[in-house]
Each structure stands twice: as C-alpha cells, then as structure tokens.
C-alpha cells in the first residue's frame, strides 16, 4: 500500500515512507526518527539526510497540541471543489513537531482561536480514503 488513498486527492502513490499509511490505517499518526543518529523528522523521511542512514524508526505524534494558524478555504482547486469550505491549519505538538492538516468539521468557525488546544487523529474520508485531522481537546 502506498499513498493512493491519502487525503482528498493523492497525486502519487509509491514511496519508501508508505509504512506511514499502514500505521494510519491502524489508527496512529506516526513519524520517523533515525536509528543511527537520533534525528527526527516530520513529515516522515525514510532516509536520514543528517547521517545518510536509511534505518529509521516510527514513533507516534501524541499529546495535546496548539493551533498556530489557520484559514477557511472557500475556493477549492480542481478535485477539491466539493470539499470547500474547508479549514486548513498548522498545529504544533510535542517536540515542536508542526503538522498541516484540516480542522475537524465539528469545530465551528466562530470557536477557532490561534493558540487553542488541539488533538491530532486519523480520519476516514468518503470512498475509503484516509487522512488525519485536528480535533478539539
């Protein structure tokens, strides 16, 4: 399995980092840490540019994050027309890991505040597609 079912529209499938999708299907949003030098990355990297190793471990992005910024997108590009309006956001989690994802539709636009607490969790989309999203804590 590659990235063919990731997000609303995926543009490419095969990648060494596709283990991410196996973890996501199992309910975990994970990223990589180099087994050789300990450098960690998000988005995940199957290779470590710091020490040139390709021996990486996966660890879960857990805990409470905070909302760094967001935008309510009213004009969706081709492939996303039916999604709009949707809310894109950057959230920051333990270890300074910053993640781009959508805010859950359960959060009302009036309740969104930069700095608010967030959780990150996998989400099922129509047509057997999967992604992750930010939820209210």
């Amino acid at each position: 399995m590659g990235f063919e079912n990731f997000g609303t529209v995926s543009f490419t499938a095969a990648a060494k980092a596709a283990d991410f999708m196996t973890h996501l299907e199992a309910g975990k949003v994970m990223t990589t840490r180099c087994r050789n030098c300990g450098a960690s990355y998000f988005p995940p990297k199957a290779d470590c540019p710091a020490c040139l190793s390709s021996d990486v471990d996966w660890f879960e992005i857990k805990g409470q994050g905070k909302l760094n910024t967001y935008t309510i997108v009213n004009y969706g590009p081709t492939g996303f027309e039916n999604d709009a309006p949707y809310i894109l956001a950057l959230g920051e989690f333990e270890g300074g890991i910053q993640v781009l994802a959508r805010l859950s539709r359960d959060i009302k636009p009036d309740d969104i505040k930069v700095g608010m607490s967030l959780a990150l969790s996998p989400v099922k989309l129509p047509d057997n597609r999967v992604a992750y999203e930010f939820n209210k804590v």
Partner: protein
Amino acid sequence: MAEVAIVGVGQSVFSRDCGVSIRELSFEAFKEAMEGLDITTGDIDASIICSAPEYDKQRSPAGLISEYLELTPKPSFYVETVCSSSSTGLRIAWSLVKAGLHKVVAVIGFQKMSELSSRDAAERMGRGADIIWESPFGLTMPAGYAMYARAHMAKYGTTEEHLAKVRVKNSHYGAANPKATYRKELGLEDILNSEVITSPLKKFDCCANADGASCIIVARGDVAKGITQVPVWIIGLGAATDTMTMAGRKSLTGLECAKEAGKQAYKMAGLKPQDIDVAEVHDCFTVSEILAYEDLGFAKPGEGVGLIEDKQTYADGKIPVNVDGGLLSKGHPIGATGGSQVRTIVRQLRRQATEAQVKGAEVGLVHNIGGIGQYGNVTILRR
C-alpha cells in the same frame, strides 16, 4: 565599479487572456528590451528562458522561443523557481557573464495562465506544495499566505483593514500603468467588501493569474557602456530557500527565505535597508507586501503596517514600494513577474517611470518570492 549591468528591459502588456502564443508574448517583451540598444539579436550570446512548467502546454519552451527570436544557434536553457523564475534567471545570467563565458545574455520570462481554467490553475499551484504530505489536504498558494496573514494578525494585531490599505496604494499606481491587468483604483470598502477567498484574504487581497512576458538584457560592464547610455548595475544578489512544506516553517510571521536573501544582497552591495530609494516587492497577496517590509528591514518585525498606515511606501514616502501597481495590479504571469519587477526598477533608476517617478532614485531593490515562500530572491540595482 560593479562589473555586470542591465542594458535593456521590457515586458508585454499583462492581461487575463492575451489571445496570442507564448512565442509572440515573448517577442513583445524582447522587442521593448532591445529598443534603443546598439546591438542586434546576433550579439546575444545566450538566453535563459524562465517559467513554471506546470502551466505550459509547450514542452521545453527554451528551444521554441530561441527559434522564434532567432537566438539559435546560441545556447538557451530553461530555469524554474515558480514565481521567482526570472529572478533566478537573472542570477544565472550574472554568473555566466561574471565567469567570462558570455558577454551578453537575455533573460526571458513568460507565462500564459489562460491556457488553464482558474480551478485548474489553482490545482497546479497546489502541486507547488509537497504532493505527498500537503497537497492532498487541498493546500493552495492563497491558503498558504492566508495562514501567514492569520499568524501575523494573532501575534501583532494586524487587521484586514491594514492589508486592504496595501491594495488601495497599489491600485492607485496600477491605474496609471499601461501594462497592468487591473487599472482601476479601489477604495478601502471595495476591498473589505469583496468575497472571501481563503480567510482572512478576500478577492482584492489577491493578485490575478495573468498572461505576460518579460525580458532583461544583461551585459559585461565594458560592453554595456557601448550598448546603452544608461547601464544599470547589478550590485547585490541574494537567493535562499525555505522548506517545501508549511509544516517545516520555523516562522509564520515572516518569510525566512526573503530575510536570508535580503541579508546576502545587502552584504554584497555594502548597503543597508535605509539606503534603498525604491523597491519592488512580491505582493502576490496584500499580506505578502507587509511581510516584505519587515523581512527586508524597512520596518521592524510587527511594525510593517505602520509604513502603509503612514503612507511611507507611496512614491513620496520614506521607502516607495510597488509604485508601478505591484503584482496586485499588474497581474502575476508566474515566470514573467521577476523580470517585470526588474524592469520597473531599471526604469525608475533611468528616470523613465511613467506610473510615478521616485525623485532622485539611485538605488533600487527587487524582492521576488517563489511559491509560498519556498524560494527567496533579492536583487539590488544602482544607476
């Protein structure tokens, strides 16, 4: 004395739908750049063709444009850093001349965005993000900048009205620019009441997709003096990158690539921000101009809005910015934009500006950004 000069600049009219081919658009820019120069096409030793390929129908446009302009058999090649492609082209032209490989180099940028529908163009822009990790969420260029705007508002208290004032200024000058797509003056209310595209950015906070071409002719210093009466010297060049992903950004209230490119360009020129007499900055969105004020050191972080509030970036202000209307008025034909910005500064330094001439301008700066701050380019010119 600097050793590489710009001898000619040109651009086509920028428009929503030009109704001609990319070769013909490029000719229009090339012709204006060559006007009044004591050289012919045969004297051009190499050409660098700049555009963002995702919008092009033509594969390998360097060969096509080279043939149409009769630049064959001289070398020609293609460069891309999305919206800053022609600034990158200028940087390479400088190094080719400086290295002694060529004496005269043409940098031609173009984009015919009307080849695609607006939604398809937005999809191509979306793929200018990381296609595995971020494009699948529906990230677009306006959305990326909107997130910078929101973060700037949250940290510094910047308002939608502050942003709108940038458009008020740029539309004022754009109304006098015969090459601009939008030549209508806009009031604060027009902008604040326009539809929300991606909050907090509204329709008039955004530049328009456009068709257009630009051309810069670069020459070795000794040769330049024989080609034109008024060479404009390239005295500072800076280029930097930031992460492709939004997730990787360390700051959401400024563009790190612009700060770094600016630092390099000032250092090379031996100048400080206060030495700049006139600037063209990459106002793809109103917020981008505010970020540029701060990233280039025209204002301290968080104080950029003060410059527009006090009208210090108008033609008679402390640091005139985008007094040709900017991308917001001219439109943004991706590969042509950097060359158009350079053209404006060269015309300012030659006292040939038609929209608004900044009095006594000796040193000008061009700030040209690719993508959502992935590529930063700053160029400093002196007459």
